[in-house]
């Protein structure tokens, strides 16, 4: 992994494979599916390699176009970025395997859009430039619009209208914040911004505060914090299953951006901007947990229930970020890995349950099941245990670490009571869903034999493989919870010492190129020096 260009590969690889798939999908759909699977597997391998590289503790910087930061755009790979890359590639792999079981043929260009979405996600995690972050947000959003509409249907169109309008308004706010920060500091590199914001003259702090809070509002739209999450359950509930599973990582982009910005730019060294969000972020995050948990309890459909589960887990993560201590962030990252995998698995399973109960879909009422009932009940039990954070699986470890870390903060009482009450609500709701779906199915609708289901179950193998892979990963996260929590603790430590990141980005030097066009142009402009 010493080749310098590996860092940019998580962006380049999906871009190239997406372009190839755009051309190939019509002519050879079966081949396209295999190609997409191979490309995503390669992406996963590269991400794991980058994780091993980042785990050394050093921050690798890649200068795009060989321009020195802050003048050009830099990509930076630290522990947090590597963790997000691996998590994205893992969820994408499972979603894609599931999608190859028939969902990819329901509309045009599923695989190409999927790859472009991965490109946007990876770019947002890697970039060290604020405007570049905006561009990658737009790349991932525009492909998510396409993916959301994949397979069409009136519910999807309605959800897409809301989702697209809301995100366009969010993008406008993002641009206002970026432009304000540029007007104040004259730079867009996050490392350089961190330096310059700390030296800002006193008469500009009000503007800098406005810019910082606007930026955070945009990230909260993506991360689904309290007043800004109402789009999420409808959108995720309307998307097709593999897309919804991939969207489980989308809220994490917002959380990643909040974490990056609050530790790097508005961290301990930022003068008046230090901890710009901390007075109210934990309160809003706690309210998000409470409302998300109530939504889980009230949901009438399994997919709406999982959408609300994502809101609740986003609240837990933002709580960990908002408490702004290394140990809460480390706990939050452990929880994030588990809740993302569990939510993705639940979305896939909800779709599978819909196939198995032909008439009833994913509605939370008793209906006749086909022969796969037992296997699905076991999978649902495992995933629900992981999602609710109940002991044997590692979701519990993340929550326990968070409670322990929050115990010494001013928010201790609120955090402990609301997180525990939220977990109880999640557990009760999933227990109720499981018993309604799986315990009483036979007698409920005697007139509807499961014969109608048989035409839909053609692609069992891909579906089962994806679900088993996700469950296996959750078990692995629990077995290897020690190494995982050691890694997240090191990640949090690295995040709360932003000087290393700033030094790495601003200290990166362009490599001496074999053909230096810029020097040649300079020398051509000065005829006297041309002899050199």
């Amino acid at each position: 992994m010493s080749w310098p260009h590996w860092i940019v590969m998580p962006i380049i690889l999906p871009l190239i494979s997406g372009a190839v798939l755009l051309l190939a999908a019509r002519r050879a759909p079966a081949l396209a599916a295999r190609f997409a699977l191979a490309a995503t597997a390669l992406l996963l391998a590269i991400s794991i390699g980058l994780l091993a590289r980042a785990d050394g503790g050093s921050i690798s910087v890649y200068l795009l176009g060989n321009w020195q930061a802050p003048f050009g755009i830099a990509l930076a790979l630290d522990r947090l970025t590597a963790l997000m890359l691996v998590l994205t590639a893992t969820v994408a792999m499972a979603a894609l395997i599931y999608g190859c079981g028939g969902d990819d043929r329901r509309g045009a260009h599923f695989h190409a859009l999927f790859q472009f979405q991965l490109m946007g996600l990876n770019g947002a995690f890697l970039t060290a430039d604020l405007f570049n972050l905006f561009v990658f947000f737009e790349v991932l959003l525009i492909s998510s619009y396409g993916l959301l509409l994949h397979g069409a249907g009136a519910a999807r169109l309605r959800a897409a209208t809301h989702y697209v309008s809301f995100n366009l308004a969010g993008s406008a706010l993002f641009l206002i914040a970026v432009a304000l920060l540029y007007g104040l500091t004259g730079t867009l590199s996050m490392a350089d911004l961190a330096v310059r914001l700390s030296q800002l003259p006193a008469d500009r702090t009000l503007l800098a505060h406005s810019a910082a809070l606007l930026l955070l509002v945009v990230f909260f739209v993506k991360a689904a914090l309290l007043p800004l999450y109402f789009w999420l359950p409808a959108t995720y509930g309307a998307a097709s299953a593999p897309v919804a599973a991939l969207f489980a990582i989308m809220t994490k982009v917002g959380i990643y951006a909040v974490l990056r910005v609050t530790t790097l730019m508005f961290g301990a060294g930022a003068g008046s901007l230090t901890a710009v969000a901390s007075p109210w972020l934990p309160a809003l995050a706690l309210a998000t947990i409470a409302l998300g948990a109530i939504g889980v309890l009230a949901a009438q459909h399994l997919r709406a229930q999982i959408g609300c589960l994502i809101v609740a887990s986003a609240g837990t993560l933002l709580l960990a970020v908002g408490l702004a201590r290394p140990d809460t962030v480390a706990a939050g990252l452990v929880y994030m890995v588990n809740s993302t995998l569990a939510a993705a698995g639940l979305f896939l399973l909800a779709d599978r349950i819909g196939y198995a109960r032909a008439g009833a879909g994913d509605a939370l009422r008793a209906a006749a099941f086909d022969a796969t009932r037992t296997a699905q009940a076991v999978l649902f039990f495992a995933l629900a245990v992981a999602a609710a954070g109940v002991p044997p699986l590692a979701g519990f470890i993340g929550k326990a670490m968070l409670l322990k870390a929050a115990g010494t903060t001013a928010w201790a009482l609120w955090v402990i009571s609301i997180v525990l009450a939220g977990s109880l609500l999640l557990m009760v709701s999933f227990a109720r869903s499981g018993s309604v779906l799986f315990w009483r199915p036979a007698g409920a609708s005697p007139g509807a034999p499961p014969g109608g289901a048989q035409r839909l179950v053609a692609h069992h193998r891909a579906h089962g493989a994806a679900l088993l892979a996700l469950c296996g990963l959750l078990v692995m996260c629990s077995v290897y919870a020690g190494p995982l929590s050691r890694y997240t603790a090191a990640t949090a430590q690295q995040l709360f010492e932003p000087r290393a990141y700033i030094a790495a980005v601003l200290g990166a030097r362009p490599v001496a190129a074999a053909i230096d066009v810029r020097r040649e142009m300079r020398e051509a402009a000065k005829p006297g020096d041309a002899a050199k």
Partner: protein
Amino acid sequence: MMNFLIATGLGTLTAGGIWLMLRARTFDVIIGLTLLGYAVNLFIFFMGRLRVGAAPIMVDGVAPSLANYADPLPQALVLTAIVIGFAMTAVLLVIALRSHADCGSDHVDGADVPAPTAAAPRSRDTP
């Protein structure tokens, strides 16, 4: 005077955009988002400071500092933002048209609003 004019212009564009965005018809929302996009693009441009008669291209014999030239970076940023905003508006237009065709209504929530009758012409002020 120039600052006042530009600030007022931006404020008007933003206010109009937000007002239209809060209406319940997809067409109004799209126009509102476009107006807001214009306001944002102008705002990015003006963040490079207002300069009259200064180009962002270096000339021989004039010292390369921001005192003599306009800041080229916001101009590059605004170009990117215009292209992205254009693409996003196109996507939203397609979705809105398809939604209108499928749901038979240009309400942002689909068809859950009573169809307009001849006696009561369609109210454009539905909240």
